[in-house]
């Protein structure tokens, strides 16, 4: 078992505009209304980067910013883990379309936005963060993989880390070979040490495969359709604020067993 302490949560999904606004929905105390989230450019970015930042970057920055605001930690000194099931489909589609017919002249900005770690690069510029930053992928299980990396990093370094997971639907024709349900971003600030900002204790263990926990009924379709939304059972458990276990699927033969309890 690895123990982490959640200090901040960020959320940006359909009908889930922020963690603060969504907690009552996740508890079933407020109605859920599906609506595309607004994605304003981050005010932290310099003007040039604000213009260039694609939707997926704005999503990651929105979720990360809320989690840090709640935690009270400085993003400039906190290591980050970014995880996405496949990066920026809109940028990839634009590049692949351009490359399909002559003269194949790519936009330099599109090219640097196409890297899987684009959101991490913009985050570093926006927040002045010079701490280590990793960007990773495990297809549909990218959230679980990111959480595992966060747990390992916090444990091995003894330092807090932030996990930011995000997905944006791919445009047609990529959407036909890679359907992703909705724009969804989620972030956690995690510390290996209990402190005044601790919201919950998260004990994590890697286990053989077990059926993953489901989201609240109205949100279950979102969990199934969007890899980053596989965090919803964890978010719902956190919204309830009571002791509870959650199972996340991880690859085809493992799962992450999460046990949440008050700090």
């Amino acid at each position, binding site marked *: 078992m690895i123990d982490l302490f959640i200090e901040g949560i960020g959320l940006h999904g359909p009908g889930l505009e922020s963690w603060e606004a969504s907690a009552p929905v996740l508890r079933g105390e407020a109605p859920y209304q599906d609506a595309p989230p607004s994605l304003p450019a981050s005010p932290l970015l310099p003007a040039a980067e604000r213009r260039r930042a694609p939707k997926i970057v704005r999503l990651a920055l929105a979720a990360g910013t809320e989690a840090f605001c709640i935690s009270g930690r400085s993003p400039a000194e906190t290591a980050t883990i970014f995880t996405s099931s496949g990066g920026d489909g809109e940028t990839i589609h634009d590049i692949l379309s351009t490359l399909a017919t002559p*003269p194949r002249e*790519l936009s330099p900005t599109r090219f640097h936005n196409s890297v899987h*770690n684009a959101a991490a690069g913009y985050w570093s510029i926006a927040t002045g963060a010079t701490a280590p930053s990793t960007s990773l992928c495990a297809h549909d299980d990218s959230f679980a993989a990111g959480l595992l990396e966060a747990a390992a990093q916090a444990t*091995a370094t003894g330092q807090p880390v932030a996990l930011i997971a995000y997905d944006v639907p791919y445009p047609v024709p990529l959407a036909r070979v890679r359907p992703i349900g909705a724009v969804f971003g989620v972030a956690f600030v995690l510390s290996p040490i209990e402190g005044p900002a601790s919201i919950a204790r998260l004990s994590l263990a890697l286990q053989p495969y077990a059926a993953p926990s489901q989201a609240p009924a109205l949100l279950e379709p979102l969990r199934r359709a969007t890899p980053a939304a596989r965090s919803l059972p964890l978010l719902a458990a956190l919204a309830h604020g009571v002791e509870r276990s959650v199972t996340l699927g991880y690859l085809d033969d493992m799962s992450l067993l999460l046990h949440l309890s008050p700090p």
Partner: protein
Amino acid sequence: MKPLALSPFALVTSLGAGEEATLAALRAGRSGLAPCQFDTLPLAAWTGEAQGCDDAPLTGAWASFDCRNNRLAALALAQDGFLNIVEDAKTRYGAARIGLFLGTSTSGILQTETAYRQRNLDGALPPGLDYGRTHNTYALGQFVRAYLGLHGPAFVISTACAATSKVFASATRMIEAGLCDAAIVGGADTLCATTLFGFHALGVMAEGPCRPFDAARSGISIGEAAGFTLLERPGQRHDDETIMLLGTGESADAYHMSSPHPDGAGACRAMELALKDAGLRSKNIGYINLHGTATLAGDAAEDRAISTLFGNEVPCNSSKGFTGHTLGASGVVGAAICSLAIRNKFLPGSPHTTRPDPTFTSNYLTTGRAAQLSIAMSNAFGFGGVNCSLILGRPS
């Protein structure tokens, strides 16, 4: 960190497949770069194309994973008894206790590039494109995990050109945190139009072969590579000859998406953190395999960072004149070359670099020579301002 033992590397680059071919080219100073045959480019660029991908499709149970990137990974895994090393590790640890942490930048995007050219009049992609097993960033991990029969934690890191350096840091933390007992690390990146035309669009692609740290350098030559090694705690099977991972250092620039900080501040911090992690000082490093991609700004920034930390004492150079810039695979290529250099008492040269930039102050080695070497550093820096330094060697 507590040192971790590294197996010999299973490597394929444009220098050839396996350690013997790689070492022979390094000793002969023979570059793997040649005028680009892979695609029709708008300038006379050279590439480091690996041989053996075109006529070796993945078949049978692996056919659905078939793409250039997974083919090159399979070719690398077949080198130097690495499959036996993995089987032996599975016997000792169990397949569920071996992690798999790989890196790539573009994975199998070449499959989707081809599919986009074959779209029908409605714009639909042709049938048969398996996005998840070829193009997706994790496709490399999914393929190698199945191919090696591993059941431990796995993911693919994609931090542009620092990806296969950062996998060493992640694997070390996973082992320290008890989530696995050993790990396969490495990765693959292969030629595709996205990177060839992308780097051209940025104006950083050289005509002719790249010339790292040369006064007349004009940009990168893109190469392709795959490489793997097993990382585990040292035990009875290891001895004084074993190469260890001694330290890792990671930082972010917080400066620009595709240009390094001009003073190399982020690079400097990554190297300092790697030294601190290894409990070493700059004088303990006997050779530095530089990131050295041969761009004007990148080489200048790295030279400043090296000079700040090491003065002009430590011999250093880039292997990009041999292999080209293998992008997401450049980290594992650099680590493999450091391992070869230590074990074979030989510092490689730097083909195509004839006159190091006279404004630079680092000790840039243009010609290979014999050397007693026990500890080396390998640098990799990438888009998004991500930096990673590794220290490998034999602790005294």
